[in-house]
């Protein structure tokens, strides 16, 4: 059993938000005795958490859910209102990169300043200086003032310094949202190495892909409370479900499956060949078997569509082309829609189905989609090539002439 390195017991954090800031003595003096009016913001409520040594622990939650406050308390920046936080080991907060960077100083000078802020001694920085410069790929620019760097260069430099602050526990707050794709990939590579070297990482993010790819365990915070702790995959699902229903609520229109539609989608089953499956390899076909029940017959079009785990609509297969002027008779029908799994890249997906009136601006008759329903079948694409990225698989080939 690995030892616990972070232990949080019954942690509460409240912020007093004064209605009118009394930042001057006069206001204080004039308002002596008068109860100052403020709102109490409960940023964290009764948080209990243990993180073991060597864990890559993800924290997810919407903006304002309290996750950044939690990270700041772990980093010793904020003090808990109630409860206890015990940390065994040294800790580097990556809450923001390039703290203390000064545009008027050179790259070199900023390395020393920022390194010292992150708790490195001068000796350590001298020793690691070359490594920092090499990683940032900024050798030629080190004696130029930072204000002449592009923002991408600044981020690279900042990140390169930060990873040298070799402590036992790293707190990372979505710093990877910056930088170009190739640098982001390099960053993730570093995090993997950090993880392999047995260090503990606490990672706050919105990116469910990253949570599933890197975390051993994850937790979701919502409205200042822990709503779930467990497998990254489960947490990612919980997060997405919560998010889509919230998005539906906040978009103003109420997304609801029609109560008693003329044609109802009874069930959707995913088949691999003839047997039900949730996993498909790239060489296989995915078949969606849709059962519908028709109350009053009419001409319809049916669309089966694929959503990425984060909710992005990737595309659909519309029935118009295959079932011309489809007008199912009263009663139950079973339809099948088949497509190649190899068009998708490795990852998790949802499949939705909708029945609409014909035409380019159709009305919904019934739909099983994110926000309308929780019964979207999930499936994953496995063992796809490592050299894939982006949104979907682009079939193509390379040849060498001469």
């Amino acid at each position, binding site marked *: 059993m690995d030892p616990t390195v972070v232990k949080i017991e019954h942690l509460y954090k409240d912020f007093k938000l004064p209605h009118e800031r009394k930042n001057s*003595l006069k206001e204080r003096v004039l308002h002596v005795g008068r109860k100052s009016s403020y709102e109490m913001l409960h940023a964290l409520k009764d948080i209990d958490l243990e993180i073991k040594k060597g864990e890559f622990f993800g924290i997810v939650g919407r903006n304002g859910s309290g996750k950044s406050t939690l990270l700041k308390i772990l980093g010793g920046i904020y003090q808990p209102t109630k409860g206890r936080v015990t940390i065994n080991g040294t800790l580097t907060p990556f809450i923001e990169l390039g703290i203390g960077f000064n545009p*008027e100083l050179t790259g070199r000078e900023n390395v020393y300043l920022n390194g010292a802020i992150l708790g490195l001694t001068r000796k350590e920085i001298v020793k690691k200086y070359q490594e920092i410069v090499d990683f940032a790929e900024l050798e030629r620019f080190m004696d130029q003032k930072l204000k002449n760097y592009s923002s991408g260069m600044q981020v690279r430099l900042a990140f390169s310094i930060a990873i040298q602050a070799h402590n036992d526990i790293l707190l990372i707050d979505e710093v990877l949202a910056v930088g170009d794709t190739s640098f982001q990939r390099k960053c993730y590579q570093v995090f993997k190495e950090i993880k392999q070297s047995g260090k503990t990482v606490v990672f706050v993010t919105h990116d469910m892909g990253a949570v599933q790819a890197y975390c051993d365990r994850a937790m979701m915070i919502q409205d200042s409370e822990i709503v779930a702790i467990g497998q990254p995959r489960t947490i990612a699902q919980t997060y997405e479900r919560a998010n889509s229903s919230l998005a539906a609520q906040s978009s103003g229109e109420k997304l609801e499956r029609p109560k008693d539609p003329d044609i109802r989608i009874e069930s959707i089953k995913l088949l691999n060949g003839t047997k039900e499956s949730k996993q498909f390899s790239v060489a296989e076909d995915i078949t969606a078997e849709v059962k519908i029940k028709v109350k009053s017959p009419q001409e319809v079009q049916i669309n089966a569509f694929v959503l990425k785990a984060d909710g992005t609509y990737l595309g659909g297969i519309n029935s118009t082309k295959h079932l011309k002027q489809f007008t199912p008779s009263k009663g139950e029908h079973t339809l099948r829609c088949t497509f190649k799994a190899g068009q998708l890249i490795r990852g998790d997906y949802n499949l939705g189905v909708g029945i609409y009136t014909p035409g380019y601006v159709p009305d919904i008759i019934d739909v099983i989609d994110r926000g309308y329903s929780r019964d979207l079948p999930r499936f994953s694409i496995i063992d796809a090539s490592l050299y894939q990225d982006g949104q979907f698989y682009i079939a193509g080939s390379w040849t060498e002439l001469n």
Partner: protein
Amino acid sequence: MIDALNRMFKPSNRSLVRELVVSDFKLRYQKSVLGYLWSLLRPLMMFGILYVVFTHIIKIGKGVPYYPAYLLLGLVLWTFFVEATVAGMNSITARGDMIRKVNVPKYVIVVSTTLSALVNFLLNMVVVFVFMLLGDVPFRPTILLAPIFIGELVVLSLAISFLLAALYVKFRDFSHIWDVVLQVLFYAVPIIYPLTIVPAKIVKWVSINPLTQIFQDVRSLMITAETLTTKEVFHSQIGRLLPMGIVVLIVILASWYFRRSSRNFAEEL
């Protein structure tokens, strides 16, 4: 206590102080042709004005031996006190961005501003030595004791900086209040005038001020033994212990208040 001291002199904290002082020094005189010469010129120009006024118009300086060196030394000590406390007061607020994002030891930030001022002070002291040579101030070995009282001044300035820095986070009024206090102190401390012309009724009140005690003791050790010191005003060593006691009280108050409030800096900034 030992633990606190150990932490204070941890290598990483020392490195941080060093980097903050060095970068502050580099940044202060960027894009200025004369660079750090300005930190010498400022007290020198003030000295020039005051010297003309107080030797030719109001003849206060007449009776003081080696008045130019005497006046300049007072001004240089005063400049250090002003620079250290004003920069110290602003230090925490100015680094708010850093404090909100990383758990740096807060006292390091205040200490670094006092050290920046100390670097300037030492450069200014070079000019004081030049004036002492030009003014034929005789060399006396007592000069070697001066650092004791300069040390007292550093401790006092540091303590006031801690207090003001913490107060300034909560009450922005303190920049104005401290401005006024400094104005008053400039005249309440014998910087431009000799302590000997202060009426007997209030001389004890003037002398009990730690700044008076420090300035007069340093002058007495460096310029001329004729300087009236707090010890002589009270006719006993006890007299010197009074202002030193005040320094100790300020140190205790400041470290208590700073420690208590520094935990919440990140939220209040």
